[in-house]
């Protein structure tokens, strides 16, 4: 089901976590709430889940106003950053929890748990305890547990935040595929722009309790609404009021009209990508991204003088 958040405000004491936030989440979409810590993204998720009560505003799931409903009757499945595994229960009892609460027949529960453990690739570990699982396995168990009750909405609060980089990447791709299979409306909270762009079809950028922009990953990157989105969604060089993406800086070996002189401070080889750190003659630092091939042709090295100009730049009118 689709979700609508309408004019939601939430404060914790003096701290305004959400200021008049309105967001529409289309049915069946995978939406990321992206923002730095303290931007209100987790609070927004918890308001949707019913774990926080907004000071004002409404939450609609489907066509129904659920603002006054407790979390347990909202039909949401939630996954937490630190897994929230029920430590005293086996994997299968964890997954079965929601069904057991609903007093479903035992045979149905067993069949459903089996099906879900297969879906999250934990078939062989049904009798284990959470302490005997790796972080990635625990989080997949938590996901199966949330899916068991056939939620109308799946809410993921920094689900991969506590995992190491390699597992995180694997699980992202896996989540993407899972969403294609299950099609449940999903919201994922993350502070990692790469993660948001990789998994989500729609991204809501939050900052200081407000929505800065809503759009597809491509729209956010190519047409950022303001300075914050521009600098949060990918690296950026700022020269005065002008913003330039590192891959939109051209490096020239000979002076040309409109190109500024700069000295190479550092060349970082990251495989396919090569990052070059420069300082312009006016003291401005610049970051440039090249492909390995481009870098090799230019034969760049530290201390070398080059000439730079922007092939594409963005200026935001004062807000």
């Amino acid at each position, binding site marked *: 089901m689709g979700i609508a958040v309408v004019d939601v405000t939430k404060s914790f004491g003096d701290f305004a976590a959400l200021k008049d936030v309105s967001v529409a989440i289309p049915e069946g979409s995978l939406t990321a709430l992206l923002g730095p810590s303290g931007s209100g993204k987790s609070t927004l998720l918890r308001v949707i889940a019913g774990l926080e009560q907004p000071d004002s505003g409404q939450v609609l799931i489907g066509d129904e106003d659920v603002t006054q409903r407790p979390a347990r009757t909202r039909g949401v499945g939630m996954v937490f950053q630190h897994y929230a595994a029920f430590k005293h229960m086996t994997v299968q009892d964890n997954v079965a929890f929601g069904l057991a609460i609903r007093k479903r027949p035992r045979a149905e529960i067993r069949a459903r748990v089996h099906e879900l453990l297969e879906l999250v690739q934990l078939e062989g570990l049904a009798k284990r*305890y959470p302490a005997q699982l790796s972080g990635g396995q625990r989080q997949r168990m938590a996901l199966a547990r949330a899916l068991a009750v056939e939620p109308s909405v799946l809410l993921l609060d920094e689900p991969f935040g506590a995992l190491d980089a390699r597992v995180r990447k694997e699980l992202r791709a896996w989540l993407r595929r899972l969403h294609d299979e299950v099609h449940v409306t999903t919201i994922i909270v993350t502070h990692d722009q790469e993660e948001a762009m990789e998994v989500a079809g729609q991204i809501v950028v939050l900052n200081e309790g407000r929505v800065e922009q809503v759009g597809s990953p491509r729209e956010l990157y190519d047409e950022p609404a303001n300075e914050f989105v521009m600098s949060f969604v990918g690296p950026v060089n700022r020269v005065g009021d002008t913003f330039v993406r590192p891959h939109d800086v051209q490096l020239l070996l000979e002076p040309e009209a409109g190109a500024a002189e700069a000295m190479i401070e550092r060349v970082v080889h990251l495989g396919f990508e090569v990052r070059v750190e420069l300082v312009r003659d006016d003291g401005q630092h610049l970051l440039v991204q090249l492909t390995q091939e481009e870098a090799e042709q230019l034969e760049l090295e530290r201390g070398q003088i080059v000439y730079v100009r922007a092939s594409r730049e963005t200026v935001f009118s004062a807000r």
Partner: protein
Amino acid sequence: MSKYVLRFTALGYLTLLLMVPVGFVFYRAFGDGFGHAWDAVTTDRAVHALELTLLLTAITVPANTIVGVILALALVRGRFPGRGLLNAVVDLPLALSPVVVGLALYLLYGRGGWLGGLAGHGVKVLFAVPGMVLATMFVSLPFVVREVVPVLREIGTDQEQAAETLGAGPFQVFRRITLPAIRWAVAYGVVLTTARAIGEFGAVSIVSGRIEGKTETLPIYVQSQYAFDFNTSGAYAASVVLALIAIATVVGLRVFQPKQEVG
């Protein structure tokens, strides 16, 4: 090498401080033969004292366990004015001498005390079981609270919130998630509460009036035998009963507690 020094010091300390005195009590109790010791603890007076001690324990432990868990939840999860004060007050019985506790109850329920009028309405608190229950509950209140609070802090609220989103109501969350998570802390608190309830002397001694065969608990009986009746072997024999109950409680926990708590 330093490993052995450490081990020796720890064992030596325990031996001198605990094992030798307790062992000596056992030795003296059975010094005149097992039959003699058995006779000493099966007199009507001794049996009554044991029964009374067990009664006090049977009332105090469940009450303080339930109240203790509720207090721990309030201290960790609650957001209300006066929480800091409550936190300090819970520790009061640990800091306060039991004799002072007994005296306070004596003043409160005694003639001229705020609640002294109860006696006139047929509610006898002082020199009767109710007063002794109150005294025992007072001194043994902190144990369950102090064991459960750190565990509640550590588990946080994630599991409970996950259960909530899965459809569990507040009572189901408590029974299926919170209680299993704190069960060993509660069990340990119960053991400490039991030990304290069985052994309490100071506070109970004051409010009970020490009436033979009526308000005499086992610890009071031990002291009477030793100090007033000069029946040292009787005192030792009764002490052994107290020690055995305590040992059984601790051993019981060890037996039922899994070697390695999963999670």
